[in-house]
């Protein structure tokens, strides 16, 4: 085909679509941007016009204020939007609330930019929808065969078992405020845990957004302001940075837990002084990544942010034409 690089290319600002004249998840301010999801490294403030799902726009407004961009346009999942000659559709990516794949159609070719995604069920957002395409641009956060995540419900069962074994201690779960925290809450509810869950203040605005979007979180209360040795036997959810810090001292002999795909590897858990690692990730693991590539069979695969090397090797072994794109500026929200 006449070259996917006419439709999509890598620039210092991030992925750029010349015929549509817009960027996707740019890391610097640009005139026109499509934003796949609300995590701060993908959704930055200061762009001219932003196209995203209504949920992602709400997340950006909550994080950066209503003036996060000069102009914003909402596109629901499946709704077709035209940008010059390029037809843009946002499809569910299964990553967090409002997360989308950007599907670009131009001159008979289809390119899908996955954003961050996972293939597993998540009670807080719709499932990833595979879209047949010529070019698939995939994330690679957990692109190593060591990352094959267990069932998230088993991990939550571990947490509940520990709570029953140590009723005199507070379980302090580190979870990213957008997505992971609400998923953990919903998984706890699904496992039958109906008690009040205690929240670090940084969770409040995202929890409210999820609830406004119809995600039921059950009884929540602030953990902040609690007295010394507070909340024995309770579960507290906080940003990862807070669980081993000063903030954690108010609780009763806390057990630091951390919900992240990185918890698959012991050394990572130990470095962070985590005593109860919970392998729960909002990214695709090795099997999900490679099975997605096999399912979509794109003519070309571009791999962005993460461990590209092993996926390139997999592609070579499986006769898939693949290239690594180095897009600077994306961080992993779990870190």
């Amino acid at each position: 085909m006449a070259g996917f690089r006419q439709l999509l290319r890598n620039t210092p600002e991030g992925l750029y679509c010349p015929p549509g004249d817009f960027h996707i998840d740019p890391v610097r301010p640009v005139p026109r941007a499509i934003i796949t999801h609300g995590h701060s490294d993908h959704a930055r403030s200061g762009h001219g016009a932003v196209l995203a799902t209504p949920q992602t726009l709400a997340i950006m407004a909550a994080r950066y204020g209503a003036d996060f961009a000069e102009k914003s346009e909402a596109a629901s999942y499946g709704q077709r939007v035209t940008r010059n000659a390029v037809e843009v559709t946002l499809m569910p990516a299964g990553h967090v609330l409002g997360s989308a794949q950007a599907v670009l159609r131009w001159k008979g070719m289809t390119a899908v930019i996955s954003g961050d995604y996972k293939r597993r069920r998540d009670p807080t957002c719709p499932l990833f929808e595979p879209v047949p395409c010529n070019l698939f641009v995939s994330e690679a956060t957990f692109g190593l065969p060591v990352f094959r995540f267990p069932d998230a419900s088993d991990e939550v069962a571990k947490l509940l078992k520990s709570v029953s074994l140590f009723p005199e201690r507070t379980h302090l779960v580190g979870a990213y405020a957008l997505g992971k925290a609400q998923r953990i809450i919903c998984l706890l509810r699904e496992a039958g845990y109906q008690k009040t869950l205690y929240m670090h203040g940084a969770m409040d605005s995202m929890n409210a957004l999820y609830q406004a979007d119809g995600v039921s979180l059950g009884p929540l209360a602030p953990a902040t302001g609690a007295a010394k040795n507070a909340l024995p036997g309770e579960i507290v959810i906080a940003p990862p940075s807070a669980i081993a810090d000063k903030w954690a001292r108010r609780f009763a002999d806390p057990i630091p837990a951390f919900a992240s795909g990185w918890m698959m590897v012991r050394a990572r858990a130990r470095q962070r002084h985590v005593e109860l690692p919970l392998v729960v990730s909002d990214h695709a693991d090795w099997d999900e990544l490679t099975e997605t590539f096999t399912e979509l069979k794109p003519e070309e695969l571009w791999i962005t942010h993460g461990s590209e090397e092993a996926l390139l090797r997999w592609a070579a072994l499986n006769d898939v034409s693949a290239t690594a794109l180095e897009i600077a500026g994306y961080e992993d929200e779990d870190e």
Partner: protein
Amino acid sequence: MKAFARLLDQLAFTPSRNAKLTLLREYLGHAPDPERGWALAALTGALRFDAKPGFIRKAAEARLDPQLFALSYDFVGDLAETVALVWPARPGANREPELPEVVEALRTASRREVPQLLERWLDALDAAGRWALLKLLTGGLRVGVSARLAKQALATLGDVPVGDIEEIWHSQEPPYGDLFAWLEKRSERPSADAPGRFRPVMLAQAIDEATDFARYDAADYAAEWKWDGIRVQAASEAGQRRLYSRTGEDIAAAFPDVMAALTFDGVIDGELLIFNKGHAAPFGDLQQRLNRKAADAKLMARFPAGIRTYDLLMDGAEDLRALPFAERRQRLEAFIAKLGSDRIDLSPLQPFASWDELAALRANPPEGDPQIAEGLMLKRWDSIYEPGRPKGPWFKWKRDPHLIDAVLMYAQRGHGKRSGYYSDYTFGVWREDANGDRSLTPVGKAYFGFTDEELKRLDKFVRDNTIARFGPVRSVRADKDFGLVLEIAFEGLQRSSRHKSGVAMRFPRVNRIRWDKPAREADELPTLERMLD
């Protein structure tokens, strides 16, 4: 296998001793026989397979592209863990194996059969199960459980004193069916009558100088020097020779020279020391021989080990533990004299007439071995040998520690209750280079000796004065114009090639925090060097 794997997983991440006890007790109380018995054996080192890791790697590379395996290993950094994580299970695997099946199969399998067995099990297990299996196979559980801790968990499980478990421990064999039956009150206590078994040791309380001397009469006590080695119990009964640490761990393998000298029939209690032409060598020399699986002739010639005895528990078949110390002592002296060994000698009694006289001896020990003693031991003449740490019959009276003023240089976060605090402190003293410039050189690390209140202030100091971060470590401002002086107490000082300063401290701790003292007035390296043992 699942429950055992889960237990290992949790133990590995749990720093707190109490939490470990809870986890162990929970597992041992719920897992069925004989699984829990094999698990206990694996945790206490009574069950080992020591398979070479090479064939495990080979098995993995047969399943996964070597380049993908190499990338994975590079990221994870541990072979067993990498294989456990990347293992691509074949669909249609067997049912998950139970721990007793695995143990039974490994004990009977030939070397050629092991790889096939392993492959089948890896296919059937999940990642945590694979990790537990591989760790079990390669003999390195390393989950921070000592035999002592496991026995403590058994004691809470059966609600019996831990001494009762130690007394019979060495007569029991995995999978410990009789032991569990007794702990669950389903049968009588198993017989402890095994030759060479461990006898729970009697320990001393630290003396309280302020009150104890007024309370006790000097005439009731014998005194001897407190030797700076490790407490051991040497048993030689009915051809069974054993050398135990004070917690009942068998350390015989590292000390063939001592084992060869156990040519008696009985059980002695004493201090394991390195003997240098009949004289006790400093602790650092003994350290060269500790924590080894074996000892070669060269090492043994350089650091010959022996026992300085201070008690006799069994004389032949006669149990002396119910006799008063005075009588046991006479029997010991006769026993050692008859033995006539150059590796097993007698810890001499130190005569004294009053506590004041003893205090003077402690402050100025006589020439010879007492100079490197840790202090004094006081034992009531009429004390029977009573396991545990009873208050009154035996006291230890340590020498005052060495003290230096050092400057806080680096801090690291602690674990468990202290996980939010910078509670591990590396400190340094001044050293002058050839140009006469003074700089700090690290000389040790301390992580206790302060109160919770002091910890909060120290933590705040670290946070407020951080100048650089290296992973979990913070570098704290420390120069001639600014820095925090810590008064460090320690027990001894050794030359060390592993430390930049050339010295290594024994048992350092924060004695006082000198908020008042300017950093430039902290001690210098030569001061420290004069304290070398």
